[in-house]
């Protein structure tokens, strides 16, 4: 047997063993990669896309971004040194069970379903996909203050990130409101405002 053939066979054997090890032994769980719900990263909107949709700070306030991951972005609303609230946008693709709580709520904010979670948290589901949340911190915020903050997010821009989402007025069958006649010219203007959906490649 020639020398090259021997080397080739040896290497082939080693490669086969290595591949076999990775396929059959439970190494998979150690290796990095994947998302929380094992959703492909390309299907989850990157947190960078959410940043510009946060409310603009008012006089004396500031917004400090604290976390940004795939499908998630969070900021703190600060008044001087004091943290007033946590503001967050998340893509529920990685946590579909979070959508369940919106199914039965009668409350609406700008047409999107609204849910209260405990005394300090309000959540809004935009485009049946993105959850916007305001959690009062420290001295706390009352419900109307939280709703004001939720409304200050760029909700229309957020809905536009999900290309397949229905318009905010499209309620489930049986709960739909009468169709409103669109004002000519207005629709076109709106579509100009909306930016293209941002689905970024995997990080």
């Amino acid at each position: 047997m020639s020398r090259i053939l021997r080397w080739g066979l040896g290497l082939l054997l080693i490669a086969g063993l290595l591949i076999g090890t990775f396929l059959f032994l439970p190494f998979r769980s150690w290796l990095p990669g994947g998302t929380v719900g094992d959703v492909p990263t390309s299907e989850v909107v990157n947190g960078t896309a959410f940043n510009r949709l946060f409310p603009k700070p008012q006089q004396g306030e500031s917004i400090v971004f604290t976390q940004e991951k795939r499908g998630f972005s969070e900021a703190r609303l600060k008044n001087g040194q004091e943290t007033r609230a946590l503001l967050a946008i998340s893509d529920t693709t990685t946590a579909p069970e979070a959508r369940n709580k919106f199914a039965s709520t009668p409350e609406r904010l700008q047409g999107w379903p609204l849910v209260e979670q405990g005394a300090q948290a309000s959540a809004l589901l935009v485009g049946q996909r993105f959850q916007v949340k305001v959690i009062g911190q420290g001295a706390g915020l009352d419900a109307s203050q939280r709703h004001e903050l939720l409304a200050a997010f760029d909700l229309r821009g957020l809905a536009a990130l999900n290309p397949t989402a229905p318009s905010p007025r499209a309620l489930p069958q049986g709960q739909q409101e009468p169709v409103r006649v669109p004002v000519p010219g207005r629709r076109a203007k709106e579509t100009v405002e909306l930016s293209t959906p941002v689905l970024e490649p995997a990080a």
Partner: protein
Amino acid sequence: MSTILERLDRLPKRNLTVLALKGISTLVPGGWRNLTSADELIADVMGSTDPELIAQVRARADALSQARHEGYSRAMSLYDAVNRSQKAAGGLRVLANVAGALPLVKQMAKLTPASETLQAADLSLKVGAEMLAFTQVNGLPGDSFGDFAASLGEYAGEASVRMAAMVCFDALLPLGDDALQRLDGLLGRVGKRELRELPAYAGMASLIPGRGDDAHLRFLRQGVDTWLGWAGGFASGLGLSGQKAVRALEGTLGPWQGGFDQLATFLDAFTDTYQHTGVQAIARRLVERAAAEI
């Protein structure tokens, strides 16, 4: 592997580490509370004590801390690596001190607290670990460098006690009051050999950006440069000094007779301040995210 919230629940409520942190926290405005209960932390973030909500947040936080790419557990392993290395190095130095006190072996075991260069390398590794852990836990928040700097400042402010502990235990006590000014010069003397002598480096090397020891050394030096700007302002703003740190520690640990560098060695060998505050900091960020996602 236990999740981050489980580790938070297991943190000690009262031991040497907690006492040292309590002592150092008297130097920092706002103080420090030893929060060791996950449920309490969740209730604090959510502003609600509803057990069902707390259970939901907890389940989500556990799922997040087990997801490898989310970085929370990776940040934890960084803190663990640094802590192990600190304890090992501190233990060796204590041993050298004890051996030095025995007349027979006195000549052989020269009483050697770690050389200043090694101490500087150790500090740079801690600063590097801190920055890597920040990006693992928080990603790169915001759209501009200004946003990122604000975010980093916010995180450091939240962790002001751990920063004070780092400045005091790893810079001022072992290197003297002019440590922060001298650090740059000291780091200039750190070579590959010193870096390799640090046990934590082996555990961290794969997470530090760049390939090879030289690239890592450059990253660490840049990290320390950035940190020094912030730490200098922090230390002078609070008026931190070795003397002050010792007095603050004596308030909780009891009187100390030895030298400053011996106290630093003692703290290195017998406390886990870095890991303890690390678990608490990561747990808070993790819960903030879980609360927003449920």
